[in-house]
């Protein structure tokens, strides 16, 4: 914050004049008042006041200092691409082509004091037109005084008339070397005293630092807010929340940070339709979340973002043919931001307001946010695709195992049995006089029988045929009978489950029984399986030594992959000395498929 010395040294000429002037005391008091006013503003900034408070304080202090009855501070900006909205005749409000118009300079009131507050409230936005004191001040880069007829007939003639103002002075505001905006002071007296411009300029030069600080502070806070919102979104995605939850959260955050009434997320479908994914704030009969977004006007946000792939704004829905539903729900203006996912226009996030046009930097502020939404969408989509592809890989692997089992079973094993049978019959036909030949053939047949048994064991290990022929319940009982450790099996499953679920559950139990026998030194294993309410719940626990390490045990890791590929979850609890327990939940899809959902 500037020190009083700064103010003094910046005004040598004025100080020198004041020293010679008979009204030295008055000048000194003015300086003291100015410093006190600036100190109050600086205190506000240091206390973290919002920019609107700071700007209003500046307008307020300025009004008091120079005896103006109405003051306002406005920021000049270059508006982004615009759709509709108020403007000079022939401006693109009704431009049917939807083309970008030339960038225009606007001013937005950011702080106002006195009677003017009702007429030009904070947020009031208007194009910089010729004849306006602010326009002249910014163009000439100096103070401009307008009074009498010129003021009454100017662009604000009506307002000036209602307020009974007779004279106005506009002074440019330079912040960090840039023409940032202007301040306007008006009086109902015939005119301001001479020399008031210099005092306004002095004050605003010093106030500029406060504006810069307040602005930087605000930007930082917004950045931190946006970062926090982005972090919350990123966590939702990382946690694997369903896409619907991510969409709803992103839309909520958009409303919180940028919106002033409504936020909506819309997805463009490959067939040319659009779907309303989430809605926050105002609503109406046309707002049906999860349904096709219909009846939107060709010059509205949805159509224009789809056509141009760029940020689009509507400054006034009264100027958009077909915009009535939005007016009815209480919207006046809106901004739509495209969401590009993997290089393709995926959808749009739109925010709306019941007031005047949304702030001109809305698009710029939303860019980073929509970028993250796009990342979140891409992640959610990739995750869903990963889920389905994992499920496909598991299914393909199971199918291969089944085929190998069949080939062994119907082919290799059958041929072996056939060969042994033939050999045995040859052996039986060998005449008694041929000595060792019969014995040789017998030994050959026995060795082949050994191979046949081995093939049977191998094919059973590759894929237990009982699982596909009889289902999970008999297959689990068969597993239990073959287990080296006694098994208590308690299965409550009606009928058959989808094959991937049966296979997944089978391998969980199989792996646990193997572990119990090989490593856990367990004396009993309990297996509970229960299928109800679209979920198979499986619990396997032994009374062994515990300490099973899911990282080192590749069997357990494989199980986790398999179960998660089916959209299920599995957890291992194996404290040293406390036995090993596995809990597993597998969704049982009603349509018989067990795969991840699409986004």
């Amino acid at each position, binding site marked *: 914050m500037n020190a009083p010395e700064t103010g003094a040294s910046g005004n040598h000429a004025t100080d020198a004049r004041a020293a010679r002037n008979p009204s030295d005391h008055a000048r000194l008091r003015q300086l003291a008042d100015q410093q006190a006013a600036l100190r109050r503003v600086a205190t506000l900034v240091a206390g973290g006041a919002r920019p609107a408070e700071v700007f209003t304080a500046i307008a307020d202090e300025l009004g008091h200092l120079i005896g103006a009855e109405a003051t306002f501070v406005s920021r000049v900006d270059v508006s982004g691409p615009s759709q509709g909205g108020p403007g000079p005749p022939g401006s693109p409000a009704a431009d049917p082509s939807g083309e970008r118009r030339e960038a225009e300079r606007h001013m937005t009131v950011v702080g106002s004091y006195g009677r003017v507050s009702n007429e030009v409230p904070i947020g009031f936005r208007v194009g910089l037109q010729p004849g306006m004191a602010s326009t002249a001040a910014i163009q000439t880069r100096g103070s401009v005084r307008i009074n009498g007829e010129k003021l009454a007939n100017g662009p604000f003639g009506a307002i000036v008339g209602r307020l009974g103002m007779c004279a106005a002075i506009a002074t440019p505001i330079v912040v960090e070397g840039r023409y940032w905006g202007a301040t306007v002071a008006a009086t109902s007296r015939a005119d301001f005293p001479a020399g008031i411009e210099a005092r306004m300029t002095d004050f605003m030069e010093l106030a500029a630092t406060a504006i810069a600080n307040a602005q930087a502070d605000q930007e930082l806070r917004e950045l931190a807010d946006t970062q926090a919102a982005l972090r919350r979104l990123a966590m939702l995605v990382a946690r694997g929340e369903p896409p619907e939850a991510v969409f709803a959260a992103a839309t909520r955050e958009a409303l919180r940070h940028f919106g002033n009434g409504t936020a909506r997320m819309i997805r463009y479908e490959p067939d040319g339709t659009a779907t309303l994914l989430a809605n926050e704030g105002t609503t109406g009969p046309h707002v049906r979340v999860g349904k096709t977004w219909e009846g939107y006007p060709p010059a509205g946000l949805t159509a224009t973002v789809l056509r141009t792939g760029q940020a689009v704004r509507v400054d006034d829905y009264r100027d958009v043919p077909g915009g009535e539903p939005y007016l009815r729900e209480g919207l006046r203006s809106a901004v739509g931001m495209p969401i590009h996912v993997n290089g393709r226009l995926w959808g749009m996030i739109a925010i709306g307001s019941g007031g005047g046009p949304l702030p001109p930097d809305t698009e710029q502020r939303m860019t980073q946010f929509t970028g993250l939404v796009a990342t979140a969408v891409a992640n959610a989509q990739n995750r869903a695709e990963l889920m389905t592809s994992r499920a496909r890989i598991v299914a393909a692997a199971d199918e291969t195992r089944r085929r190998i089992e069949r080939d062994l079973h119907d082919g290799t094993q*059958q041929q072996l049995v056939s060969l042994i049978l033939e050999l045995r019959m040859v052996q039986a036909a060998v005449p008694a006089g041929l000595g060792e030949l019969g014995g040789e053939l017998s030994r050959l047949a026995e060795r082949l029988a050994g191979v046949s048994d081995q093939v049977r064991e191998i094919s059973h290990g590759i894929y237990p045929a009982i699982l596909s022929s009889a289902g999970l319940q008999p297959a689990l009982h068969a597993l239990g009978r073959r287990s080296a450790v006694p098994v208590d099996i308690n299965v409550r499953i009606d009928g058959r489950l989808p094959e991937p679920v049966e296979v997944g559950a089978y391998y969980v139990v199989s792996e646990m029984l193997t572990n119990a026998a090989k490593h856990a030194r367990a004396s009993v294993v309990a297996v509970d399986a229960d299928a109800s309410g679209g979920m198979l719940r499986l619990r396997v626990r032994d009374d062994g030594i515990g300490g099973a390490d899911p990282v080192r045990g590749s069997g357990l890791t494989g199980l986790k992959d398999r179960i998660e590929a089916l959209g299920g979850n599995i957890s291992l609890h194996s404290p040293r000395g406390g036995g090993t327990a596995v809990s597993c939940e597998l969704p049982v899809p009603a349509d018989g498929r067990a795969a991840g959902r699409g986004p």
Partner: protein
Amino acid sequence: MTSSRAPQVVLADDDVLLREGIASLLDHSGFEVVGQAGNGTELLALVRSAQPELAIIDIRMPPGQATEGLQAARVIREELPGTAIIVLSAHVEVNEAMDLLASGERLGYLLKSRVTDLAEFIDTVKRINGGASVVDPSLVQELVRARRRRDPLDALSPREREVLALMAEGASNAGISQRIFVTEGTVEKHVRSILTKLDLPESDTAHRRVLAVLKFLEER
């Protein structure tokens, strides 16, 4: 065979080589193979027309290569309950065995590879044709060996376990006495002791005994 007429058999297996092998074995062992089928439909047609004493059926056949043989066996049981049936399978499962046995007497459920023990296989076929019900020893072994926490089988002596397994396989008391080289009277004593220890009822037929013992072994 000493009987005046060779028992007639129908064979069903989609593997022609193996089927011909078994047919040849049966033809040389006192049976008359009156028809061969490659799937369930052909088998049913054959059984209906030839009305053989015995049908030997592969469990897995076209079109589904699943349990077509089981389904055909069920139909035969309903239509011609007097036909003895042997179902051959590459692997044996207790629920399939129980299903089959529940459908009536003169029934066999065997691993396919049993056909390669020529003498034993022919002996089994003859026993089934003569009224016995037979369950594959490997399945019985799986049931007997299954570990249980409070195992009722722990009450049995090793000899009694052996006898119990043979009962489950479908051996008669005479058959058991030959297998374990004791007198039939000793076998009877073992059987009575087993039934008492396991709290099993006395069965009036060999078939019922197999069913009861299997059921006990599975559910213990």
